[in-house]
């Protein structure tokens, strides 16, 4: 775009040109109109408020994370003024060189690592750094004892001292690993006894994430942890004389001097500590933090889409209610454009006010979280006050306004369609245009079918490729969901009619409610759709999680049918292992597995295993496989069949150290049972088969993790390998449940907004039907019947949205499971009944609650109003 000096000429008034466009009356009219509809707009505004508050909180959380990273990084450099980054090849000379530069008061290499410490029976792992020469360069303080004064001394944080039960003057062992053969990388463990010289305190939370830090002499740090390696970035931090600082920043001259002083390869970088911390936190913000932000913002987007639906619905009704006024305005000369702009201006004001409220609410919520958070020891230095950056304020504001205006576009268009003549007609009940266009039908059909097609493609063709399969399934799901939402107006009322007939049988109030639900199909479907979106996504997640849980459990069960397995590690399995394991309190049953190597055909290899059938049956989760072990047969998993090119039912001759035996192959689904034969058969081919594994099952009520610990304690032998498969299963389940909980929590916001939509719709219906409610009251509808009617109406709308959402969610969840989980083995398609029941119940209760306020309003209508003339 160009600007020229002649621009002012444009503004000179030209007589007889286009009349000046003056929207001031429109604005005044719009604001007056908004005051009249304040109640209705408030409900719609809350939807936007929640959505924008969601966005604001997410952005603030992002900022807090960045800020925390920054503070942690900055704290680690204590009172240093400058960080010199260089190559690590001559790091020791670099430190000396920096110290020699004029204006440097103290300098210290940044040497950190992890130390493996033990004392008495305890063992602990702690972050450590080299003791600085100058106290100003240490982020820690000593609370007890002194800093290490010589090699072989360390200072430990309170937390480690407590865990190892040590104090100043006590001895601890530092465990290291020394590579003895650089070729193979083999080495041996080293230990060194050191003395605790003091206890450190992490006042500035520089090492809060690790629970404080161990401090050792630099020479010891280099010895115990990996020294700086060539090619890595090495840092020297330094305290500068105030004479080489300006405004708290190092001067350009000292920066140049420092850069020139270092000798290592690579271009040295000289940064102030602030710059360095900002750089590191920016790196993190662009990486993992960004992923987190995008993830959470996706849910904020869902919430905003739902809010948009609620807004669109509200404006449709507002326009319908104002038909007469709009027509009157047209009669007295208002142009279509003015009415269009008036509605959009209204949306703008609503969006701006609500978004502003959202930003304030979001900031308040974040502030409350920051006030509460320090009570839980989170191990990070959280800022105490929310910092309102422009991004945090402007982005939610912009998003809220844009969503509101977009939602109001169609209603604004409707406003322009009001004919001036409508003002002259007798007042009729406001009605929205019934039915929907053919374009909408075509779009809905294309999206739904296209999406379903992609979904089918993902499930049927791409199920072996989880990466692309899931991508295609997500795209298909999103596409078909859009189609379903766009097309909802065509079929959702019919579903509502069906449910209405079911409920209508229960009494006159329910029958009235059912009939009311169908009066305005468009509004009912829009309201139900808002809820449907949230419910669909939640049920999709719940179903996916259930499928993942079931599939993983099945896969784990097949792979590891026992709860605990003890096998040979550094030492062989001793003969008394089984009895020791059985002594553990949580252990229910144990089985001793004896194995021997066997060969078959020309190059076939199989580990022959056998155990006492009764013991084995008790030690595994599924005894079915045990029954398959019969004399003269050997179990093979499908994978083993494929590997050796044999088939089920085939007879193979197995050779062992003690002889040959023909065996028939029987298929087992479990890898763990491959090679199992009866004890007698094993004795025939390998009379001296050794005890190699002990399988155990835990009591049903035992905690898997503590059960594992008990077994380990009972064995008291580090050389044995102990696998806690029950613990693994439990952990897996925990992870899935946690993830599901987070996702459902985030989606719940969308559901809350949708419920506000239901309230809004009911309130509008109540206002519209004021005369009708009064008539019903006049002809004998009791207050409780009126209340019941609205309750049924709310529950009907919510119920329809929930039921359809559940059906869609199940389909999407299964499709997702089919594509994402097929690599884990046979996918199971469970119906998470409990989750579904909870979703349905919550939706119905929400519908019921949504009817309370509108019902109170409706009851205020006196029967006299039915008699009043217009």
């Amino acid at each position, binding site marked *: 775009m160009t600007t020229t000096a002649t621009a002012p000429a444009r503004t000179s008034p030209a007589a007889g040109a286009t009349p000046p466009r003056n929207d001031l009356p429109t604005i005044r009219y719009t604001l007056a109109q908004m005051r009249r509809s304040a109640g209705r707009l408030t409900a719609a505004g809350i939807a936007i408020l929640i959505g924008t508050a969601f966005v604001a909180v997410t952005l603030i959380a992002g900022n807090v994370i960045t800020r925390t990273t920054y503070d942690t990084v900055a704290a680690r450099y204590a009172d240093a003024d400058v960080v010199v980054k260089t190559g690590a090849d001559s790091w020791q000379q670099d430190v000396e060189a920096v110290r020699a530069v004029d204006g440097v008061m103290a300098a210290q290499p940044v040497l950190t690592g992890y130390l493996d410490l033990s004392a008495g029976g305890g063992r602990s792992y702690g972050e450590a750094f080299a003791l600085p020469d100058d106290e100003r360069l240490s982020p820690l303080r000593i609370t007890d004892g002194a800093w290490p004064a010589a090699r072989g001394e360390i200072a430990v944080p309170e937390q480690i001292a407590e865990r190892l039960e040590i104090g100043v003057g006590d001895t601890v062992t530092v465990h290291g690993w020394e590579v003895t053969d650089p070729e193979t990388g083999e080495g041996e463990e080293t230990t060194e006894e050191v003395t605790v010289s003091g206890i450190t305190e992490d006042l500035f939370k520089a090492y809060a994430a690790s629970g404080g830090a161990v401090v050792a002499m630099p020479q010891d740090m280099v010895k115990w942890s990996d020294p700086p390696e060539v090619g890595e970035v090495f840092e020297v931090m330094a305290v500068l004389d105030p004479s080489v600082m300006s405004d708290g920043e190092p001067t350009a001259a000292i920066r140049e001097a420092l850069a020139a002083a270092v000798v290592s390869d690579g271009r040295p970088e000289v940064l102030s500590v602030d710059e360095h911390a900002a750089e590191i936190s920016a790196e993190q913000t662009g990486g993992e933090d960004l992923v987190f932000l995008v993830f959470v913002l996706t849910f904020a987007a869902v919430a905003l889409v739902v809010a948009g639906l609620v807004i669109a619905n509200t404006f449709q009704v507002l326009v319908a209610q104002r038909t007469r006024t709009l027509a009157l305005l047209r009669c007295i000369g208002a142009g279509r454009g003015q009415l269009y702009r008036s509605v959009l201006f209204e949306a703008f004001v609503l969006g701006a006010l609500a978004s502003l409220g959202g930003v304030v609410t979001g900031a308040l919520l974040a502030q409350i979280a920051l006030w509460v958070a320090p009570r839980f020891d989170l191990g990070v230095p959280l800022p105490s006050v929310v910092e309102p950056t422009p991004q945090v304020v402007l982005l939610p504001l912009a998003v809220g306004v844009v969503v509101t205006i977009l939602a109001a576009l169609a209603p604004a268009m409707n406003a322009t369609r009001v004919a001036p003549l409508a003002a002259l007609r007798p007042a009729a*009940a406001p009605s929205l245009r019934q039915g929907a266009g053919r374009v909408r039908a075509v779009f809905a059909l294309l999206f739904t079918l296209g999406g379903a097609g992609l979904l089918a493609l993902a499930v049927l063709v791409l199920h072996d490729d989880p990466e692309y399969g899931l991508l295609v399934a997500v795209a298909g799901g999103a596409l078909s969901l859009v189609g379903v939402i766009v097309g909802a107006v065509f079929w959702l009322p019919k579903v509502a009619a069906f449910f209405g007939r079911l409920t209508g049988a229960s*009494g*006159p*109030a329910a*029958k*009235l409610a059912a*009939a*009311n639900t*169908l*009066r305005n199909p468009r509004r009912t479907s829009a309201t139900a759709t808002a809820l449907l979106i949230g419910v669909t996504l939640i049920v999709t997640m719940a179903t996916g999680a259930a499928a993942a849980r079931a599939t993983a459990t099945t896969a784990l069960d097949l792979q590891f049918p026992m709860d605990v397995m003890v096998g040979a590690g550094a030492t062989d399995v001793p003969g008394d292992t089984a009895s020791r394991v059985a002594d553990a309190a949580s252990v229910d049953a144990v089985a001793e597995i004896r194995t021997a190597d066997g060969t078959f055909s020309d190059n076939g290899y199989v580990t022959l295993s056998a155990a006492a059938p009764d013991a084995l049956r008790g030690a595994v989760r599924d005894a079915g496989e045990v029954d398959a072990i019969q004399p003269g047969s050997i179990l093979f998993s499908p994978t083993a069949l494929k590997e050796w090119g044999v088939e089920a039912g085939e007879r193979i001759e197995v050779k062992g150290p003690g002889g040959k035996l023909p065996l028939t192959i029987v298929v087992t689904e479990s890898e763990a049972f491959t090679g199992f034969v009866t004890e007698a058969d094993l004795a025939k081919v390998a009379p001296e088969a050794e005890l190699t594994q002990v399988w155990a099952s835990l009591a049903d009520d035992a905690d898997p993790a503590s059960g594992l610990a008990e077994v380990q304690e009972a064995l008291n032998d580090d050389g044995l390998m102990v696998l806690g498969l029950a613990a693994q299963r439990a952990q897996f389940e925990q992870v899935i449940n946690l993830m599901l909980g987070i996702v459902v929590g985030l989606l719940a916001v969308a559901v809350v907004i949708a419920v506000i939509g239901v309230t809004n719709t009911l309130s509008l219906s109540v206002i519209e039907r004021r*005369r*009708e409610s009064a*008539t*019903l*009251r*006049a*002809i*004998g*509808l*009791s*207050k409780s*019947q009126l209340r019941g009617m609205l309750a049924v109406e709310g529950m009907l709308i919510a119920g329809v949205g929930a039921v359809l959402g559940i059906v869609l969610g199940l389909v999407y969840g299964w499709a997702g499971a089919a594509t994402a989980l097929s690599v884990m083995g046979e996918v199971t398609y469970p119906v998470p009944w409990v989750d579904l029941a909870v979703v349905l119940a919550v939706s119905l209760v929400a519908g019921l609650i949504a009817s309370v306020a509108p019902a109170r309003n409706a009851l205020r209508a*006196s*029967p*006299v109003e*039915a*008699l009043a*003339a*217009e």
Partner: protein
Amino acid sequence: MDTTVYVPADGTRAVRARALTKTYGAGEAAVHALDGVDVDFAAGQFTAIMGPSGSGKSTLMHLLAGLDTATAGQAFVGTTDVTALNDKGLTTLRRDRVGFVFQQFNLLPMFTAEQNITLPVQLAGGTVDREWFGTLVRTLGLTERLTHRPAEMSGGQQQRVAIARALIAQPDVVFADEPTGNLDSRSGAEVLSFLRRSVRELGRTIIMVTHDPAAAAYADRVVLLADGRIAGDISDPTPESVLAGLDALRTLEPSVATGTTPVVPEAGLR
């Protein structure tokens, strides 16, 4: 205060008002919409309440029907003191013993004519008396319209459905508020003759509020109201006698300001 009780010429009383008073506002700004009205309405009769705008005729009807609460006095439907009932009692009264016909018809748009007619019985949880339903539908000429929704019917037809709805529960009394106000004169005449037939052939009691002398002439008796008080009583009215009665009221208008409106001498109207 006027203590004359305006009693119908014959028959038992279906509805009575005793010192019925309704005041809006208080003190200086108090408006006496109804100022101690005593009036009886006979069962099995078609009575019209007439009067100029603001005379209190609608207020009287609201109070008699239990739609509004009285400031003082009593209103009886049969022997029930309407002014003593709570909301629940009023709801039951309206459902079982009182019927309404509105100026705006007020049919439920989503229901058919038949569903609209039977709605009060369904709200009460009762079963529809098919014989009575048939009689009503035949009398009101709705046989062909039962499956139609309000939007598919003319104003007159809608009002006939509303009348059937008011009568379905066989109430003690039906209140009609300007039932012809939204109809053209032909449909209006039709509706009024149906109302009269309901009284003569079906034995119902109807009290109608109207400001149309021609409509009032369909009634058996006209009660004139002015300034919140009974101002006249006309038996077997004709449009002319009703007009004459109204004219008599109008001549009294200047005295309204003084608040000392004398009762129109009824002898002259009888």
